[in-house]
């Protein structure tokens, strides 16, 4: 057991609500799961319980609200349905999970090419054990949340498993919706995407609450882009305003593959997002994008790592935050270039638009370069709305509030424009718009 970190902070249980009896009952609910899967979960639970909660002195939690990370007050929710409208895009296939259970799965037969697998983790554990073993939570946790990632593995109930075989291209996205319902519900969303050689796929993950209750979300997405694959991933996080959320992304980019990920964050009381891109073979490209609208007292904590492990790899990160009211954001990004990753081209940028005097944006960009022939740039900026721009809009009759909204959209458009799918662009734009309409 870890000692309390300081006299002033109340001693907190390192497991909180996720005590061993809860884990035992969770395992009991997975009677049909193969032994290896249960063993994996047991090991993860041990790891989770053995690791301390983050401490103020941990560099990887710098600026985070440590006291907000309490694991108390949650439980595994009962199955539920939902009346939420589906995310408004057309898709080749979609899966909807409410409280960790699949409630709806639909493949538009004509749209899903032969050989593509869109199924649940539970089914994959039985039928595609080799793929799952190879790719599920297989990458190192380097960004500070080993404990919560282990919690995810221990309690993950179900999730999406997507496998696109060699050479297959999907014209439309695959939509995965994760929904939390009922106060205190703990959900563990998972989406695993394996895009084999020269395949092409776009996966959209949405994270929403069915009600305004306090939810606990601890999710992960594992993305694997094989040789020459083209994988687009969009995560749209709109949990309730009372949710504590963790989301872990791992992206593996193989030779000549291209991964584009865009995470839109609007929900949660405190939301941490960790994203790891590993460029493992020459020609790989990872484009990491994020847009966050932070308002009231929300905290968005984003930690990223771009690791260039092979020569001639490219990564391009652009995280934009718009902050209102007393919101806080943290961006900590690191580019690592291994000694033999010559000709690396890495870019990292965090831009914050401050719409309030009381908002707070923290940026910690970083580089660790061990090769000598590389091009790496990084930067962080925080700026307020230009009063001349605001006056220009107002001089056209646009109210100050609307001017701020337009300027925020303008600020985000650079990122949204990088999406190929216009329907998706419009849906994300509409989701951002809801944040401005609420007031």
């Amino acid at each position, binding site marked *: 057991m870890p000692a309390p970190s300081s006299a002033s902070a109340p001693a907190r249980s390192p497991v909180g609500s996720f005590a061993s009896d809860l884990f035992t009952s969770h395992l009991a609910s997975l009677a049909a799961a193969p032994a290896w899967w249960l063993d994996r979960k047991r090991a993860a639970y041990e790891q989770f319980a053995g690791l301390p909660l983050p401490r103020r002195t941990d560099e990887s939690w710098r600026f985070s609200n440590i006291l907000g990370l309490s694991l108390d007050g949650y439980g595994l929710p009962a199955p539920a349905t939902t009346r939420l409208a589906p995310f408004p895009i057309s898709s080749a296939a979609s899966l909807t999970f409410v409280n960790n259970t699949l409630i709806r799965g639909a493949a538009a037969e004509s749209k899903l090419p032969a050989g593509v697998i869109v199924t649940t983790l539970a089914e994959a554990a039985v039928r595609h054990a080799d793929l799952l073993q190879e790719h599920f939570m297989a990458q190192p946790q380097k960004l500070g949340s080993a404990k919560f990632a282990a919690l995810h593995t221990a309690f993950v109930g179900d999730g999406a498993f997507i496998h696109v075989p060699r050479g297959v291209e999907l014209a439309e996205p695959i939509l995965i919706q994760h929904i939390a319902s009922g106060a205190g519900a703990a959900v563990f969303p998972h989406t695993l995407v394996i895009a084999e050689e020269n395949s092409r796929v776009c996966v959209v993950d949405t994270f929403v609450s069915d009600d305004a209750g306090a939810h606990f979300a601890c999710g992960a997405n594992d993305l694997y882009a094989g040789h020459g694959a083209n994988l687009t991933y969009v995560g749209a996080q709109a949990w309730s305003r009372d949710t504590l959320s963790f989301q872990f992304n791992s992206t593996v980019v193989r030779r000549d593959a291209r991964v584009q990920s865009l995470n839109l964050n609007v929900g949660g009381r405190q939301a941490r997002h960790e994203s790891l891109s590993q460029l493992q073979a020459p020609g790989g490209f990872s484009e990491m994008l994020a847009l966050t609208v932070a308002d009231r007292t929300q905290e968005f904590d984003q930690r990223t790592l771009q690791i260039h492990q092979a020569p001639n790899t490219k990564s391009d990160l652009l995280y934009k935050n718009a902050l209102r009211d007393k919101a806080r954001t943290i961006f900590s990004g690191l580019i690592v270039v291994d000694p033999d990753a010559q000709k690396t081209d890495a870019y990292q940028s965090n831009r914050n638009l401050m719409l309030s005097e009381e908002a707070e944006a923290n940026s910690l960009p970083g580089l660790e370069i061990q090769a000598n022939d590389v091009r790496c740039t990084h930067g962080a900026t925080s700026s307020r709305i230009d009063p001349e721009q605001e*006056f220009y809009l107002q001089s056209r009759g646009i109210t100050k509030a609307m001017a701020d909204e337009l300027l925020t959209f303008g600020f985000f458009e650079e990122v949204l424009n990088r999406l190929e799918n216009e329907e998706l662009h419009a849906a994300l734009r509409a989701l951002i718009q809801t944040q401005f309409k609420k007031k």
Partner: protein
Amino acid sequence: MSSLVIQDLHVAIGEKEIVKGLSLTIGSGEVHAVMGPNGTGKSTLAKAIAGHPDCTITKGDVILDGVSILEQEADERARAGIFLAFQYPSEIPGVSIANFLRAARQARLAEGEELDATAYYKRLYARMDLLKIDRKFTSRAVNEGFSGGEKKRCEILQMAMLEPRIAVMDETDSGLDIDALRIVADGVNTLRGPNLGVLLITHYQRLLEYIVPDFVHVMYDGRIVKSGGKDLALELEAKGYDWVKKDFATATA
């Protein structure tokens, strides 16, 4: 019929008084040109009418159709019918002209009323045709990377879409090339009519070859020192601003 009455207006920027007791009345259907040398307060006058937060009105009044607008925010003034064509319009990255104008039109509707998108586009395209502006223009971000001429075209299109009662056009010292000059002139001439009053601020007489004003006022040291018909501009061109300065010096001596 509308009127903008400027009464003994004094405007300071910071501690410095720039406009020092200026009076002028602009009625619908009239084009008033205000000319004057650099640094005489012409742009400050334009900004003060539009409600720029940097301008402090220390004395006097600005009255639109019988109502003082000085207590109004810039957006209220705009909705009341004031339009400022900027000398250097801001770039608004990521916001298309179409969306920008849509927001401006939406702002003129009552709370809860939604803009009719079909009618809006119909109107937008009609105005663009009138001003001979290419349809592709409105999908570009407002003023971003625009040439001088494109910025002027964008201002004129906004003016056409927002149908102000009084347009204040700040063209001072903008070093407009002949194309940009023609865009402004053609725009104003097209939109000119019984429902629009124009206050045209310009440094050079050149613009007035294309837009023939009804009245010409010479501004110097924060006030109007001479008013007349369109011939005054020619006289000014011939004699130069020194002539006004000399007169002014004599008058205040």
